[in-house]
């Protein structure tokens, strides 16, 4: 996956940083310093979590039942795999620090991109811990039902869109 070690994205990101620094500098106030301070805070917060995430992902790739998962969710599992993956996304009651390492481990052991897109989409919009801890208490039952009724088909749809994008581009 990282075989070619392509630096294009890293360069683009740093170009964006320079643009933002320029925009902040144009305001002629404290924004540059503040931005760097906040960014540094994020970096300090991220790094230990990132180390855990990368280790977890590498270990999970060793531990996950490779054959079963790639049979059910591999690139050749098609629409059925997309549906299974959409339901599997409900099983992660945790934030990005757990979901992305797990997704990376699944990617490494051969889960197809459309299936993985469906899996992550379910986790993103229906993460069960977020609905229970935030959405139900703050926004109420009616809001949750409106959201479920309007969104339940989105994860498979995202998977199908991803499959179309891959096969046509």
């Amino acid at each position, binding site marked *: *996956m*990282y075989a070619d070690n392509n630096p*294009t*994205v*890293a360069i683009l*990101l740093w170009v*964006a*940083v320079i643009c*933002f620094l320029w*925009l902040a500098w144009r*305001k002629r106030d404290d*924004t540059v310093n503040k*931005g*760097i301070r*906040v960014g540094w*805070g*994020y*970096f300090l*917060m*991220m790094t*230990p979590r*990132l180390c*855990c*995430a*990368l*280790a*977890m*992902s*590498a*270990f999970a*790739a*060793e*531990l996950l039942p490779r054959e079963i998962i790639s049979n059910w969710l591999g690139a050749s599992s098609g629409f059925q795999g997309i549906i299974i993956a959409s339901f599997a996304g409900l099983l992660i009651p945790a*934030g*990005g*620090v757990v979901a*992305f*390492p797990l997704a990376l481990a699944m*990617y490494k052991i051969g889960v197809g*991109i459309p299936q*993985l*897109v469906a899996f992550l*989409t379910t986790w*993103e*919009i229906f*993460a069960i811990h977020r609905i229970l*801890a*935030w959405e139900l208490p*703050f*926004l109420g039952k*009616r809001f949750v039902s*409106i*959201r479920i*009724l*309007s*969104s339940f088909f*989105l994860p498979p749809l*995202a998977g199908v*869109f*991803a499959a179309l994008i891959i096969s046509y581009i």
Partner: protein
Amino acid sequence: MKKKDKKKTLLAEPITRKIFDGSLYIFAALSILSGLAVWNFKGPQAFERAIIDAYELFKFVIPRVGAAVLIAAFLQLLLPRDLIAKLIGDDAGIKSILIATVAGAITPGGPVTSFPIVIALYLSGANKGALVAYLSAWAMIGFQRILVWELPLMGEEFTITRVSASFLLPIICGVIALYLPIKINIPNQSK
């Protein structure tokens, strides 16, 4: 929370979490446990392979994360958030859904930032379609999670595919939500 608090949250300073909190200890414990499991069930060679793998990826990821956190910080400071909230609240139709989708995508941070904004938008008169679109866009195509987690970990090919497959979805569910015959009723909040 009172109405005034919500207004404040909308324009609040960027939220930074503590570096060492309970969640980090849990993640550290989880990674150590999974490491022990690999050593135990798959042998020291598998363990070593995994560590080398993780280290290689770390070297690859860290310059990207460095840029990503700065972009996240500056976007947060430079966005005219009150203007966006006004635009969403003032419109009753599809336009508000489109603006809400963009606003959700550029909302940084976790549920601590996004949910108070949903309530603030509701109080400033946003329709249910816009609220659903906002929350879905934040969850599916939120720039911060993409920049800080997805792009470094999953790589550009996956990220670009997923984001292109997803960027229309908040609009779709927003429009459906707008026409669903359920009246929205957010607890403990009166307009």
